[in-house]
């Protein structure tokens, strides 16, 4: 009598009935590879698993197959929805491009009271008013700012020490708020300051206009003072007092700090993190030196290489994860930015991890003299005598002339990572970006040879380290996932 049941083979999928969807892969370690699709979804797999999958020999009943299918690496007869879902995610990831240039930086003065050895801006003495921005220049910069199609606009005041020209900051804030009654943008102000010149009048104005304060804190007192010398050698105490006063006046969340890693910092990452915890910050951005401004002149940039910095970063991240395991909620912000790209369909606004590059279309900077640059780094390079990135001057060129200038469009077009050798096939491309400033500074080329690039080496090292943590350490994964805005 014939069985009422079909043979087992009837229920198994026919061989080779799946199609690959676009993805890239890269070696993760000696045994494993990581495959990443067009929108950053990833799977870690062994070499032979990768080969079986690509050559259509991976059983369609295997858990790996289902995992790859769930992450849109494959479509088969059961479902053809994956390309549509990928399309939507690509569109979400790229949505920022149409809303370009949200960050506008105003260099209201080049004057500064500090003489930091790594300072990325050529600074002048305090009494040289020739290096202050004028109201007329500020008005033209505001005209430019509100030409941006971005619904959210951040105006950041930089220097030098911007509080040395606080009258102009007040002028710009009031003028921008006036324009915004019509423009209706989501307008935010930030002052990047060393806090030396903080007064009650300044704090009251900041409170009344919801202005954020961003300052520099390089670590414990001796390290901070060594990195950031000023007359009186009291930079640390001035900073700590300023943070306290600003928090009291504006609220704890209105004040943030940034650190810069010097050679003296390399063996002290736990102390630096401890200092941030002690001062009540909720996280830290472990930031390496950039090859610009005084960091080059004083040879500070060459004081350590990518390997040195990666060791610093790894020890720092491990320590921060330990702190979290002990109940201290604390975030490493660069890692959090990358996790956002790895684990969500949303792109971040971080300037240096975008393709097309963030220059000009993520942020733009108005120098004190009216010159317009597509990034702070480009402005620093100009202060050293190379104006290759100068888009024009507010007094002589229009918005259209500057935004369509070859100074902006050539590095943007040349460096699109999807068409750059090595980047175009790199699995980490959806997490990374292009940095024409960096590669021009180090290789005199907007694209740069990525096999020789410190930017590439640093970011690849970080991506691999984060993926290792996510894959191999469930407790770390739980903490890292808590850093992401879902």
């Amino acid at each position, binding site marked *: 009598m014939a069985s009422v049941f079909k043979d087992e083979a009837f229920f198994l999928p026919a061989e080779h009935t799946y199609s*690959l969807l*676009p993805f*890239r892969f890269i070696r993760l370690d000696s045994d494993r590879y990581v495959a990443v699709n067009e929108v950053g979804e990833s799977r870690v797999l062994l070499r032979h698993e990768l080969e079986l999958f*690509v050559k259509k020999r991976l059983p369609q009943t295997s858990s790996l197959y289902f995992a790859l299918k769930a992450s849109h690496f494959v479509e088969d007869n059961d479902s053809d929805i994956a390309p549509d879902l990928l399309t939507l995610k690509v*569109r979400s990831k790229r949505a920022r491009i149409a809303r370009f240039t949200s960050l506008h930086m105003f260099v209201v003065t080049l004057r500064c009271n500090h003489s930091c050895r790594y300072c990325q801006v050529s600074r002048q003495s305090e009494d040289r008013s020739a290096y202050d921005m004028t109201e007329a220049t500020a008005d033209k910069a505001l005209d430019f700012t509100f030409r941006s199609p971005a619904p959210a606009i951040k105006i950041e005041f930089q220097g030098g020490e911007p509080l040395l020209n606080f009258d102009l900051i007040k002028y710009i804030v009031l003028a921008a708020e006036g324009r915004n009654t019509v423009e209706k943008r989501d307008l935010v102000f930030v002052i990047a300051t060393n806090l030396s010149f903080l007064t009650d009048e300044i704090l009251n104005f900041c409170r009344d206009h919801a202005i954020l304060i961003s300052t520099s804190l390089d670590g414990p007192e001796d390290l901070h003072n060594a990195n950031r010398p000023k007359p009186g050698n009291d930079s640390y105490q001035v900073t700590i007092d300023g943070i306290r006063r600003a928090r009291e006046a504006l609220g704890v969340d209105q004040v943030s700090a940034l650190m810069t890693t010097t050679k003296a910092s390399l063996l002290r990452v736990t102390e630096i993190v401890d200092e941030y915890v002690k001062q009540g910050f909720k996280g830290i951005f472990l930031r390496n030196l950039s090859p610009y401004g005084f960091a080059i002149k004083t040879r500070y940039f060459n004081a350590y290489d990518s390997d040195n910095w990666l060791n610093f970063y790894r020890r720092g991240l491990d320590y921060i994860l330990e702190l979290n395991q002990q109940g201290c909620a604390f975030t490493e912000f660069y890692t959090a930015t990358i996790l956002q790209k790895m684990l969500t369909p949303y792109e971040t606004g971080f300037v240096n991890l975008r393709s097309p590059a963030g220059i000009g279309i993520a942020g733009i900077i108005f120098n004190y003299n009216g010159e317009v640059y597509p990034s702070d780094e480009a402005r620093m390079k100009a202060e050293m005598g190379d104006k290759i990135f100068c888009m024009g001057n507010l007094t002589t060129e229009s918005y259209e002339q500057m935004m369509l200038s070859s100074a902006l469009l050539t590095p943007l077009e040349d460096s699109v990572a999807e068409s750059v*050798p090595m980047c175009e096939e790199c699995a980490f491309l959806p997490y990374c970006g292009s940095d024409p400033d960096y590669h021009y500074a180090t290789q005199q080329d907007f694209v740069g040879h990525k*096999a020789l690039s410190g930017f590439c080496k640093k970011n690849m090292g970080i991506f691999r380290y984060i993926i290792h943590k996510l894959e191999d350490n469930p407790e770390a994964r739980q903490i890292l996932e808590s850093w992401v805005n879902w």
Partner: protein
Amino acid sequence: MNGVVRDGDKFVLSVDTRVYSLEAVKKTAYKFAAATSIILQPRKDEIVRVLFNFAGVHGRSDPEGVISDFCNELLDQDLREIIKRETAPIRNLILAHAFSRSSLVENNEV
């Protein structure tokens, strides 16, 4: 190391282009610029000679390790070509669809 001939600081690896495409060999060579300098020399048959030079700035590299990694990367490039060949049409379709009806396209049309 099998298939590799040594000549002083130089090592020669012969690659059959019936197995690996010339593009895969070139892409692999490009990736190793930090560890060695490479010259590709075609022969009359379908063999490409990959000439590794470890002199000068590359004197500290481990030649056997570098060439071994080169061979592994060549295998990876071969796999990448299969993926690229199969997925290029759907990738183009996804990207075209993703950017369609976006303000970027509309602006360009204006």
